[in-house]
Every structure is written in structure tokens, then in C-alpha cells.
């Protein structure tokens, strides 16, 4: 079973899942094989679940969760929270919000 971080929420995928295309949000993709779980953090992207029970995950960056540096995540979260307060244009606000979303998701990945 695979749990994918779709924009509509965590989605569990088992063999036989209906064919689906899901947009992903920054978050943890976990692959469960029996009792073995492998967790990857995906930066964003898409998941294509095919009718023959194959699933493709398309992401610009997908890293094993143990490669994430906790100190960098905390610093990033603090920096972007600060940036959101000082942002003026819509674009700056959007960029700061993206920073907060990604770092929050990274934080949840390493502490979860």
C-alpha cells in the first residue's frame, strides 16, 4: 500500500485502486510492504494511478526522509514566517506562504 500526500488529503492506494490522477502537495509519501515502511518526502508533483495497479509518482524532488536536516527546516520555517509578516506584494506573500507550507511539511515529516 502507498499513502500519497494529495492536495485533497492523504490518499491510500492499494492494488485495484480506480485509475486516478492526483496533484501532490509537499509531504510524505510512504510505501508499505508488509511491515516494512519506506518514507520519502516529495516536493510537489503528481501521482498517476493506472488501471493495471501501477502507480507513477512524478516529482521534481523526492528524498528519503532521513536525509532531511532538522536545523535547516527550523531556520527556514522561522525565516519564511518572518517574510510573510514583511511581505507587501501578492507575489511576495505567495512565496512566503509556499516557504511556510513546505517547511511545515518537512517538519511534520521529520517529527512524525
Amino acid at each position, binding site marked *: 500500500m502507498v499513502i500519497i500526500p494529495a*492536495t485533497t488529503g492523504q490518499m491510500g492506494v492499494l492494488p485495484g485502486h480506480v485509475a486516478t490522477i492526483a496533484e501532490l502537495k*509537499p509531504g510524505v509519501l510512504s510505501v508499505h510492504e508488509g511491515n516494512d515502511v519506506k518514507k520519502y*518526502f516529495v*516536493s*510537489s*508533483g503528481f501521482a498517476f494511478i493506472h488501471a493495471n495497479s501501477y502507480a507513477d509518482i512524478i*516529482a*521534481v*524532488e523526492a*528524498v528519503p526522509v532521513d*536525509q*532531511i*536536516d532538522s536545523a*535547516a*527546516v527550523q531556520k*527556514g520555517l522561522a525565516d519564511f514566517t518572518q517574510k510573510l509578516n514583511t511581505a507587501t506584494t*501578492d*507575489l511576495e*506573500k*505567495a*512565496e512566503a*506562504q*509556499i*516557504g511556510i507550507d*513546505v*517547511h511545515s511539511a*518537512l517538519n511534520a515529516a521529520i517529527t512524525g
Partner: protein
Amino acid sequence: MASNAAVPFWRAAGMTYITYSNICANLVRNCLKEPYKTEVLGREKVHFSLSSWKEGKPLKPVVRSDTAKE
């Protein structure tokens, strides 16, 4: 029959998906432990030359290169 479902905040701010996705990837790369971080930072390097044309003649091209030759 277009739906009026809420657009994501980044699109409302005028950003395209590809820009959003690249920003997210960039942020994730910068949060990695060494040695993984130095391995992946190579993916952020871009190299391009952009030429504008005016009245049938090319203007001076804009060149951006992160792959500086030593």
C-alpha cells in the same frame, strides 16, 4: 461549464504551476543534510541564452550560466 472552485493561493497571486513546483523543489534541496545537499545542488544550475529580435535583426543575447568554467 467552468467550476468556480477556489484556485490555489499561488495561482491567485499570478504564479504558474511550474514556478510553484520549482520553488518547492528548491526549498526541499536546501533542507538536506550533507553530503546529499551538495549532490543535489547541481540540479539547480541553469544555463541559457535568450535572444530578442527587433526589426528582423537579433539584439544582444542575454546569457545566464551557473555552470561557470574554471
